[in-house]
C-alpha cells in the first residue's frame, strides 16, 4: 500500500503587509518549517532597535560594538543599523520621552522621528515612552507630522483610542500590544477595528520574555495566536513583532562575571539569537534585536530554514 502523507487543512492565513518595496511580511498559512502543510510565504524581517537618547544601561560590550559616539546620535545609529548592520526595519524606541527621564516634548519627538525617516530607507517603527497622557500627545504629533508612512506603537487595552484615531488620520500602521494573553490580544484587535481602523494595518506585539525569563509562556501564547489564525479566526490575522533585544540584554546571565558562562559578548549574542529563533518558530514576523552579530546569525537561520524546507517553492 502506498503511503499517503496526511495533510492538515488550514483555512486561515496571516495578513500579508507591505511595509516597503523590499520589506513584505506575513502571508503564511503555516508555521515556518511546516511547508508540507501549506504556504510559508515571506521571510521574517529583522529589525534593529535604536533610541532617541544614549542607552546608559546597555552592557559595555554592546556599546563598544556600536561605538559610543554613534550611540549619542539617533540619526547616526539609524544609518549604521541600516547600512552596516543590515537592518530590514528600524525600531525607533523613544525612551527619552518618558516624563521621568529626559521628558522630550511631543513636538521634539516628532522632529526626532522625521530625522530618522529621512536618514534611512527602511520602514520605521516608532514607539514613545511615558504615561498614557504623554504617549497620547506623541502619538498624535508623530502621526500628524510623519513625512512618510510609519508603524506606530503601542496600542494597549486601556489606551488604544488616541493612537488609533491618529494612525487612522495619518494612514499609518499600528502595533497592538497585549500582555502575553490571547484573549486580550483578540479583544484589542476587535476594539481597534471597531474604530474603523483596517485590520490589514495592525501588527500584534504579544510581548516577549527572554529565554529563561518567561520565554516559554510567550512561545505558547504566540503559538496559540497563530493556530487561531490558521484555524481561520478572522481577528487574529495580523503579523507579529517581538522585541527580543530589550528582554535579553537586561538579564543577569549576560551581565555577571563568571568564567564558566563563557565570553560575555558571546553570551549576549547567543541569548538574543536563540530567543529570536524560538519566537520566529512560533510565528514572529519581525524580531527586534540590538547586536549586529545577532542580525547575521538570525538571518542565516532564516535563510537556512526557508531554503531547506523549500518553503518558498512550495508556496509559489
Amino acid at each position: 500500500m502506498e503511503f499517503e502523507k496526511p495533510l492538515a487543512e488550514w483555512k486561515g492565513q496571516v495578513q500579508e503587509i507591505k511595509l516597503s518595496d523590499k520589506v513584505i511580511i506575513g502571508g503564511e498559512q503555516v508555521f515556518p518549517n511546516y511547508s508540507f502543510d501549506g504556504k510559508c510565504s515571506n521571510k521574517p524581517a529583522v529589525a534593529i532597535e535604536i533610541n532617541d537618547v544614549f542607552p546608559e544601561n546597555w552592557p559595555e560590550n554592546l556599546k563598544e560594538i556600536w561605538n559610543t559616539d554613534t550611540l549619542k546620535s539617533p540619526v547616526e545609529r539609524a544609518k549604521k543599523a541600516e547600512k552596516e548592520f543590515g537592518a530590514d526595519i528600524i525600531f525607533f524606541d523613544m525612551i527619552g520621552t518618558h516624563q521621568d527621564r529626559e521628558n522630550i516634548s511631543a513636538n521634539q519627538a516628532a522632529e526626532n522621528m522625521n530625522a530618522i525617516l529621512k536618514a534611512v530607507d527602511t520602514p520605521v517603527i516608532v514607539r514613545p515612552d511615558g504615561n498614557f497622557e504623554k504617549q497620547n500627545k506623541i502619538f498624535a504629533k508623530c502621526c500628524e507630522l510623519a513625512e512618510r508612512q510609519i508603524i506606530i506603537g503601542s496600542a494597549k487595552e486601556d489606551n488604544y483610542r488616541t493612537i488609533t484615531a491618529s494612525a487612522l488620520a495619518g494612514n499609518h500602521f499600528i502595533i497592538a500590544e497585549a500582555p502575553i494573553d490571547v484573549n486580550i490580544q483578540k479583544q484589542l484587535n476587535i476594539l481597534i477595528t471597531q474604530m474603523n481602523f483596517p485590520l490589514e494595518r495592525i501588527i500584534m506585539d504579544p510581548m516577549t520574555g527572554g529565554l529563561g525569563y518567561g520565554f516559554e509562556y510567550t512561545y505558547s501564547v504566540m503559538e496559540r495566536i497563530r493556530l487561531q489564525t490558521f484555524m481561520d479566526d478572522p481577528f487574529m490575522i495580523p503579523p507579529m513583532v517581538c522585541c527580543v533585544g530589550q528582554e535579553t540584554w537586561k538579564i543577569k546571565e549576560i551581565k555577571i562575571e563568571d568564567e564558566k558562562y563563557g565570553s560575555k559578548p558571546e553570551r549576549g549574542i547567543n541569548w538574543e539569537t536563540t530567543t529570536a529563533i524560538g519566537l520566529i518558530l512560533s510565528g514572529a514576523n519581525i524580531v527586534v534585536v540590538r547586536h549586529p552579530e545577532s542580525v547575521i546569525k538570525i538571518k542565516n537561520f532564516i535563510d537556512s530554514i526557508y531554503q531547506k524546507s523549500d518553503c518558498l517553492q512550495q508556496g509559489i
Partner: protein
Amino acid sequence: MSKQIIELAIQGYQEQLNNTKAVVQKTENKIPADKKITFPETAYNLPLYFAFTGKKIHSISDAQNLIDEIEKKNSNIISADIDLTETLDLGIDTIILQELQLAVESSAGEQINFIPDNVLRSLGVQLVSGDISGIAVIIGAARDEETAVEIIRTLQEKNILSVLAADYEGKTMFEQLSNQNVEMTLDTYIVHLGNKTESVVLGLNWAIRAALTYGGLEGGQKEKCLKYCSDRIPAFALVLGGVDAKKVATAVGAIAMGFPIICNFEVPEISVKDDHGFEQKLLTFELNSNKLVEKCLEVRNIKVKVTEVPIPVRYSSAFEGERVRKEDVALEFGGKYSKAFEFVEMKNLDEVENGKIEVIGKKINEVEESSALPLGIVVYVAGRKMQKDFEPILEIRFHNFLNQATGIMHIGHRSFVWLRISKEAKKAGFKIKHLGTILQTKFLDEFHSIIDKVEIHIYTELEMINKFMPTAEKLYHERDQRMGAMTDESVDVFYSCTLCQSFAPNHVCIITPERLGLCGAYNWLDGKAAFQISPTGPNQPVEKGEVVNAEIGEWEGVNEFVYKASNNTLERFSAYSLIKYPMTSCGCFECIIAILPGTGGFMIVDRTFLEMTPCGMTFSTLAGVVGGGQQTPGFLGIGLNYIVSKKFVSAEGGLKRLVWMPSYVKERFREKLDKRADELVVPGLVDKIADETICSDLAGLIEFLAEKDHPALKMGELI
C-alpha cells in the same frame, strides 16, 4: 413631521437658494473665471459637497452650475406635501448651498471662520479617542449673558466642544460670552464660527471631514458618510431664542446628518425608532435652562467619562480590604446596631433624574461621635440596554465600590449590611451623601454600556426605612424566585466563558441557568450582563439550537460553538454528563468530581481540602489529572453550587451517585442537599454519603456504603 416645520423648511431652502445665487452673481465679476473656489487649508475643497458627491468645485462657473442643478431638482417642491425623507433631502441641499456661498465668499477674500484641516485633526483625534465627549453646535443667543455663561460652563465641565454660530434678534452667544470675559479658544473648547445662519455649516463640514478622515470613507459615499456622522460623531444642535425659516432649513440639514436639535423654546417634537427599537428624538425642547445641557446629553446619548470619584477621601482599589476599628468609628449603620438595607431598582428612562442624590434624615454632623443610624440606600437606574435581570449584579457591587474609599468599611449585602465611616473620613469632610456620590460615579463608569442614568436616595430615618424595607425584601425574594425557577429549558441561549483560555487554550465553560462556571464566579446572569457590558469580551451568547440528547444535555448549537471556541478540538459537548463528552476543566474549578470504581459512584473534593481522598489522590494531584482543557471522562471540575442543581450530573443519576465529600461542604449545603434528596425520593441520602471523618480510603468507603445501603452500589459501575 409637522406641516409647520415642512413649510418653514421649504421657505428656508428658497431663501437660501436666493441668497447663494445673489452672492455668486455679485462675486462673479469680482473674481477671475479661473480662480479656484475652495476653503483655505483643506484637501477637501467644499467638504460637504465633496463627501456627498465625490465632486469638487473648481471655478465660479461650477458654482453656478451646482446652483442650477439644485434648483432644477427641487423645482417641483412647492407644497408642504412632501414626506420626511424629501424634507431631509431639502435640508441637505440647503446646507450645500450654504457651504457653496461661504466658499465663494471666502475665495473672494471675505473673512470666513472655516476650520482648517490641521485643526480638524487635532480636535478629531480628541473626539475619536473620546477626550472630547461631544460637540454642541449652538445656534442663536441665550436669554441673557449669565445664562450664556452658565450653559457654556456646564458644557465645558462635560468636555463638550461648543461651536457658536448665528444670532438671535441681533444677539449672539459669542458677544454674550465676550462681554462676560469668557476665554474662547480651542483649549477651552469654544470655537466661534460666525454670526450668520450660514456659518452653522462650518461646524457641519467639519463633522463630515471627520467621517472622511477617521471613517476611512471616500467622497461620494454619501449614505456611509451620513451614517458615520449619525453613529459616531456625538454632535447635536442647541437652538437658543427662536427660529426663522432659514434656521429651520439648516436644522433639517443637521438632522439629516444624524444630529438632533434641542431648543429652549417650544417646538413640535419629532422622533424615530433606532435600530434597537428605542425612541430617538430628532427635534425636542427643554424650557428649564438649568436642565438644558443634561437634556442634550440624554437625547444624543452622550456619556461623560468620569474616572475620579469626587469625594474628600482617597479612593482606590488598594483600600478595599481596609477595616475601620470600633474605636475609630465616627458613625455606623447596620450590623447589630441598627436596621440597614441596600437596593437597586430599574426604572424607565424618564422616571430617573440622573445625578440626583438625596439624603433624608439625620446628617453626619447631627449625630454624636461613635453612634449608629439606620440606613437605606435605594438606587434607581435606567438605561436603554438595562434589564431587570441585571439588578442583583449591580447590587452586589455596592460592597466593592463603597469599600474602595479610605475610612469606609462595608460588609454584607441586601438587608444584612454593616457600614462604618471612620473619624478620619468625617474629619476630611466625608458626608453620608458621598456614599451616593461613590455609587453614582462608579455605576456610570463601570456599567456605562447598560446604565444611562442613576438616581440615589439615602434614608437615615427609621420611619422611611420601615416603609421601604418590606418592598425591598419582597423584591429580593421575587428575584431569588425568578432565578431559582429558571431552568436550562426555559432559555434559548447559554453563555460561554473563555477567560481561562489564556492558560488552558482549548477550554470553554458553557454557563447555563442550572450550571454555573466551574470557578464558581460566573453564573448565567453574570454571563448575560458581561456580554452586554463588553460585547467583544470572553462571554458570548451561545444559541442552544436543536436538541441532540436531552438527557446528557447536548445541543447542536452548543456543539458548533464549542467546536469553534475550542479551536476545533472538541466536537461534542454535554452539560450534564460526567462520562459522555463532559465539559473540559481549565484549572480554576472550585471542586473536582472523580469516579470511584467499585462503588458505582463518585466523590467530590473541593480546593480547600488538603488531605487524602478515597480515590488515592489529594486535590492537587487530582487537579493535575483533570485540568488543562481536556475532556477527561470520569473526572470533572465544577463550581460548588452545581452540587445542589437539578442538573447536577443528571445524566448519570446525579446526587444518588455521590458517595463521598468533605464534611464541611456537606454541612454547608445540608439543607439544600436534603431537599434535593427528597425530590429524588431517597430520603436520608445525605447521611449515606461518607466524609473524611468516616473514611479516606476506598475499602473503608465501600464498607460504609454497604452498611448504609447507599443507592449507588446498586446502580452499576459508571464506566
